């Protein structure tokens, strides 16, 4: 078939029977504990601008990883779906653009925005699955670009070039969710839920079927699976992961504008997912953390190297290029293949 398996390293859906007993390794518990206790030692800047941002971007990239790694469909529309949700929250809820925003309460605006974004993602998917393989990238990129240009041109609904500012997280249960610590937990919670959902779904019948379709769509059709319907459903599920992340991103920035859904950010999400590794759902978060750290500290790094601080895109592009060329399964793949065996070897040799 036209599409090569995206990530050879991706563990094909493990047996439904064996998965139940899997269990979480010690390192996983330690990671969870560190993330939960983070606010006790990290500064507000780190909580929101580093980890909050990384969780949000990681979740959007996770929705791409799910489609690419398990469905064999590299969709570039995920950032657009997230941005769409952000726009919907700004339009339906409150923002600085009072003449457009409808001012709905958050408990109505947020679920509606998510539902609309899922609809948007599903329709985009329905369009993209009309052709398979390498066309997916092109079509989803075209959809993303169309939405970007549309938001930039449209003043009446999408606020044109400037978009919406003053879009803030709500206050409820007596908690101000825009304060750093609650917001950190909000981002962490959705990232963890999204990660858990993916881990769960890929071992459920639906996920198993999706991976079968990735590897051999013709055979799956001959087993009675509606290949197209499964692919579209995968887009819907991915949109459901990305949409809340898009709302969080909008609250994090306090605004949503065409720049959020531009070609640059759309490609960045792909870069994050690929650099982290398309094989496993934790990959996008690794990629996102790296991206965010680079984004924040690249200036100092570049200047230290004697380059202009403006060459951030060059660093990102080269990093991406090197990853694709030399470690197609990302940093996680590099870790699994080279570093972990060596560590294990040394430990084994010491005994």
């Amino acid at each position, binding site marked *: 078939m036209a599409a090569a398996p995206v990530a050879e390293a991706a563990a*094909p*859906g493990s*047996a*439904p*029977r064996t*998965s*139940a007993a899997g269990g979480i390794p010690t390192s996983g518990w330690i990671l969870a504990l560190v993330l939960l206790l983070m606010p006790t030692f990290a500064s507000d800047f780190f909580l929101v601008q580093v980890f909050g941002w990384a969780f949000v971007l990681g979740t959007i990239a996770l929705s791409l990883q799910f489609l690419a790694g398990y469905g064999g469909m590299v969709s570039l529309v995920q950032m657009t779906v997230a941005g769409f949700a952000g726009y919907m929250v700004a339009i339906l809820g409150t923002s600085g653009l009072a003449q457009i925003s409808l001012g709905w309460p958050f408990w109505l605006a947020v679920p509606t925005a998510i539902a609309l974004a899922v609809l948007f993602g599903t329709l985009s998917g329905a369009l993209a699955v009309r052709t398979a393989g390498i066309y997916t990238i092109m079509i989803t990129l075209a959809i993303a670009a169309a939405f970007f240009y549309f938001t930039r041109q449209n003043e009446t609904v999408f606020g044109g070039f400037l978009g919406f500012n003053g879009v803030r997280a709500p206050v409820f249960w007596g908690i101000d969710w825009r304060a750093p610590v609650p917001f950190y937990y909000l981002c962490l919670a959705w990232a963890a839920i999204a990660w858990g959902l993916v881990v*769960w*779904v890929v*071992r*459920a*019948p*639906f996920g*198993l*079927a999706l991976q*079968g379709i990735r*590897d*051999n769509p*013709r*055979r*799956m*059709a*001959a*087993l*009675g*699976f*509606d*290949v197209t*319907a*499964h692919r579209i*459903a995968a887009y819907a599920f991915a949109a459901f992961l990305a949409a809340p992340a898009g709302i969080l991103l909008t609250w994090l920035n306090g605004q949503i504008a065409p720049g959020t859904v531009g070609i640059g950010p759309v490609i960045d999400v792909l870069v994050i997912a690929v650099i982290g590794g398309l094989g496993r759902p934790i990959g996008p978060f690794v990629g996102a953390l790296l991206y965010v750290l680079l984004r924040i500290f690249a200036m100092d790094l570049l200047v230290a190297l004697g380059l202009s601080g403006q060459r951030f895109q060059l660093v990102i592009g080269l990093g991406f290029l090197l990853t694709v060329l030399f470690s197609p399964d990302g940093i996680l793949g590099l870790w699994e293949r080279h570093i972990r065996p060596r560590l294990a070897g040394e430990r084994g040799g010491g005994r």
Partner: protein
Amino acid sequence: MAVAIAERLSATGQVNALELRGVTKYFGALAALSDVTLSVRPGERRAILGSNGAGKTTLLNCITGDFLPTSGTIRFFGEDITYFPAHERIRRGLRRTYQISLLFGGLSVLDNVYLACLGVSRGRFSLLRPRRDDPLLESARALVHAVHLDEVADKKVAELAHGQQRQLELALALAGAPRFLLLDEPAAGLSPAERAELVAILNGLPAHIGYVIIEHDMDVALRVVESVTLMHEGRIFKEGTPAEIEADPEVQELYLGHGHGA
């Protein structure tokens, strides 16, 4: 006129499992199938023989919906399925095996069969993981048993011997409630012992399940069917019982060469 009456008859009275009328398939200017008309009763077991390029696999592909025929109609238990998508045909009880094994090599034997059972169940989109006593898993285990693969049920398919993979192909085709099978050279590449096993499995199938089998090995083919159709260059040119076909001098000349028992 005659066709219309025949259609009405087949729609009400004795319905054929498979009813092909004037099925023609062109690839560019090349006619892979020319005016193929064929009917198979429910439970009937039929071999389609012919040299390479006679159009046998193309015929199967048209029946399962891998290709759409250029013209003609295909009915399955009276229903016109000519333009149905592949998965809709499968859900109506049609099954096939492939000449080259198309299996999920990274999954275990049981998971492969589980997928096949899932494909014809209502739980295809389920987001809930199956429990230990899931009925689909139960039926998957039963199928693995039916094709004599219990011992390797948890092995990855890629690690299986060729013969075992062919048996698994068959298990996938038997998932759900099959009414009719299309078997594309199930004996290809099998050892004599494995062939005997295959013949045993085929003859052990429930009597209501009919099949069409494409097979080069006459020893296998003629021992598992009650009727034979011969194809040549995309056309049907002879039908009969295995005994008639075996005795036919023209057939001897064309396909069986010198002594088919070799």
